[in-house]
């Protein structure tokens, strides 16, 4: 994308006014998407963007500038703008020499290059999904199916001599359905997303996604209002992983911790969860949605154990926060695009499976709520209070899953809820998600096996 000699000159320019650290992050992303709605292919879209973000760190201050102009002059202008924060900080000529070959990522580490499908191939999949959803029941009144794929090449060079790169192909397919009945409308949604090219569809059946989305919408037509108040909750394997993403994942991000804006600050070595909880964040897992070769600061992705048998073992780190503590990044410095500063972000965050039987857990729950699918969540890291929404839930009565429930949010406090986990099964699975923080979105994975919380507040309307 950019010559090494140019990168060296730009980094030297960035440190001309002083400063402790300079970095060039260059990105070239192309994406395409197709949308089928109301039985018609309504829109095919293609996009391309490339540019670079340049950061200069001087003491506690970061200067940042970005440009879509990857010529040497364009990069030098951005370097000058970013270095404005270091004015008066010594300066002088500093030569930056980049190392021979730093970490290289997914696309270069021997993995097969991602395959691409034609536009016609994508449209055929959309048509098949639409047909399968509509064939699921007369109540299905509307179907939308979407396909999106992107290739993101990144190049990172910094004044420590690091030169690293990655190529990330990501593909997703989603189906959303509306069902119409006497009680009004209900919705169902299912998505598959992997760090892969078109070979996603070797692993995923679009018909199956469509039928799952349709069956949720249809089931909820006869749903009763969700209960109001505290009840035991059994979370099915997969999307329940978002519980950990919200209940503690964000609170373990070092940028919150170092500002004392996390309920988990100062708790390393302490018991913060049920002994059944071993929580891992791992950017190297297969082709999960949060997987990459190197992070957006050039660190290779790695596996980090955050909680082991209930004891907090470590936080997640990026370059800046790690440097402050005299340690190295844990490979969690990520950014939405070259226009953004990196932050501490999760990758694939999951609870290690236990040895209980999923059916047994339900059978041993006299009354409660069974959540088959979660929709999303949100947390306040400083108080630990979080919500997560159900998009398919059922009542458990006398140990049996019975009636479907209308959508509701569940609310809890992270440190309290983590201690209320009393059963974890072995039926582990992962689910993709989009994590938003401070205005930046990045792809992440969440995972867990079927598990039970002894009590959570359910925000339904039934008294």
């Amino acid at each position: 994308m950019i010559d090494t000699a140019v990168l060296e000159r730009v980094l030297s320019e960035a440190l001309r006014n002083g400063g402790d650290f300079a970095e060039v992050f260059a990105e070239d992303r192309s994406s395409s998407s197709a949308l089928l709605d109301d039985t018609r292919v309504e829109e095919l879209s293609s996009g391309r963007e490339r540019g670079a973000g340049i950061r200069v760190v001087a003491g506690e201050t970061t200067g940042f500038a970005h440009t879509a102009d990857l010529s040497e002059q364009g990069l030098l202008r951005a370097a000058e703008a970013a270095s404005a924060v270091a004015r008066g900080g010594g300066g002088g000529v500093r030569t930056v020499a980049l190392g021979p070959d730093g970490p290289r990522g997914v696309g270069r580490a021997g993995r097969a290059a991602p395959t691409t499908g034609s536009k016609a191939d994508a449209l055929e999949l959309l048509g098949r999904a639409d047909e399968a959803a509509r064939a699921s029941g007369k109540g299905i009144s509307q179907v939308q199916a979407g396909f999106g794929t992107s290739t993101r090449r990144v190049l990172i060079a910094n004044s420590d001599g690091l030169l690293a790169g990655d190529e990330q192909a990501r593909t997703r397919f989603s189906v959303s359905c509306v069902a119409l009945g006497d009680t009004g409308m209900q919705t169902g949604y299912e998505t598959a997303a992997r760090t892969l090219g078109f070979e996603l569809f070797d692993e995923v059946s679009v018909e199956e996604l469509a039928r799952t989305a349709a069956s949720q919408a249809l089931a909820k037509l006869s749903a009763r209002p969700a209960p109001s108040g505290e009840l035991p909750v059994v979370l099915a394997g997969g999307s329940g992983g978002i519980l950990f993403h919200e209940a503690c994942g964000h609170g373990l991000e070092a940028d919150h911790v170092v500002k004392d804006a996390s309920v988990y600050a100062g708790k390393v070595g302490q018991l913060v969860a049920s002994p059944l909880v071993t929580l891992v964040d791992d950017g190297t897992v297969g082709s999960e949605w949060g997987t990459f070769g190197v992070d957006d600061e050039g660190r290779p992705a790695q596996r980090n154990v955050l909680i082991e048998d209930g004891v907090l073992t470590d936080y997640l780190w990026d370059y800046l926060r790690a440097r402050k503590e005299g340690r190295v990044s844990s490979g969690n410095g990520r950014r939405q695009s070259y226009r953004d500063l990196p932050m501490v972000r999760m990758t694939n965050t999951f609870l290690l499976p236990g040895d209980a039987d999923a059916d047994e857990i339900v059978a041993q729950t006299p009354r409660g709520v069974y959540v088959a699918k979660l929709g999303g969540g949100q947390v306040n890291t400083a108080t630990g209070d979080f919500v997560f929404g159900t998009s398919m839930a059922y009542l458990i009565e006398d140990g049996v899953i019975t009636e479907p429930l209308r959508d509701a949010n569940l609310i809890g406090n992270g440190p309290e809820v983590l201690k209320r986990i009393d059963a974890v099964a072995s039926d582990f699975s992962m689910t993709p998600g989009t994590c938003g923080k401070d205005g930046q979105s990045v792809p992440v994975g969440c995972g867990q096996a079927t598990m039970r919380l002894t009590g959570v507040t359910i925000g339904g309307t039934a008294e």
Partner: protein
Amino acid sequence: MSTTTDELRGTRPGGGTDELLALAERVAGWARTGEEVEVYVARGTETEVRAYEGEVESLTSATSAGIGIRVVTDHRLGFAWAGSLDGSVLEGTLAEARDNAAFATADEHVRLAVPDGVPAVEVDLWDDGLVDVATARKIGLALDLEARTRAADPRIRQVDSADYGDVSSEAALVSTTGIRSSSRKTSGYLSVSVIAGDGDASQTGGGFSVGRGFDGLDPDKALTDAVTRAVRLLGATKGPSARSTVVFDRRMATALLSIVSSALSGEAVAKGRSFFAGRVGEQVGHPGLTLVDDPTDPRAYGAAAYDAEGLACRRNALIEGGVLRGFLYDTVSGSRAGVASTGSAVRGGYAGTPGPGCRALTLAPGPEGYDEAGVLAAVGEGLFVQSLTGLHSGVNPISGDFSVGAEGLMIRDGRLAEPVREITVASTLQRMLLSLEAVGADVEWLPGIAAGQTLAIGDMQISGA
């Protein structure tokens, strides 16, 4: 056909929109016989300063630009965009949009907007002052905001962010169907987020001040709001479950109206994704509920002269006296419904395509004296909500199911009483519109697509301890 149009590389907003119009016109001029082409070009600059513990934590300065092209051939739509106005990307972007069109389903309603004769109401959204202010003054304002917030109250134990930011942007839209429009706007903000501590317990609050220019930004407003919100929640406990009237403060009311707005989109209605579909002329809300979208009001944060297809923005009455009057349409959704566009197309920048949406919703205000205190006094007993979470995960604008996390204070004897947290409030959007008990006269144009007005809604289920 020109291939060396790189004169816009590195130029900055503030130079006027003429060169953007000229560029859009040149690209639209490359249309082939039998195809309609619409070219949207935009560029902007931004500054962002974050202060922390008396230092600049980060300073971002950047410019960006891009182009989005729609091509319609034989009633098929294709779209492509690029994050650059460099001469080298323009032809490729048009070619890609053209190729994409070939794959879409032919649909008689798919077309580009044509001028409809409605004159645009010019709104002045540009403040030269913001563009000209030296970066040092912007940094100074952020540092001042942070320092004063820290000193504002002994219970503030952390200011986790104190930001200054501004954006200036220009855009032009030209089509082969006769559309030619341009716009430019500036906006600045101060925002601060705090953690209040009292023993082990922490509570958070945020505040902001927004404006078109630099001089109108008010650090006192931002910090007072943040500090008040955090401090008054100290000691909050999980409130009891109950069925109750809920008063939403102005910020939360803006969020609620924004959600309702998606059910007023003509596209959602046409595709059977709105609980308002087929109900025009029916009583869908309390008789006191009158809802209007009026982007020609220059006070509105979302004010605009032209919509995203280049038609004049206009005032649209949506609900009057609780009776549903109509929906918002762009050209395609209007055609599908057999009506003209209401000038309501919106788009998320050059990388997105237009669709119908609101820009400036307001409710007809309640009686004089209905500020926050007035509404609380009128309600007497209930729950006052100052923050909501899970609006994306617990509100379904298609089914209407509504269940969100909340923080706030109990209302007793018409006044704010003890704080509560970790509760949910639930109902359905349909029932909430009918159960409206009071609308504030305290209209404040907050960031977003709807005004802030204190709202009281009856018969909501609170889940807590």
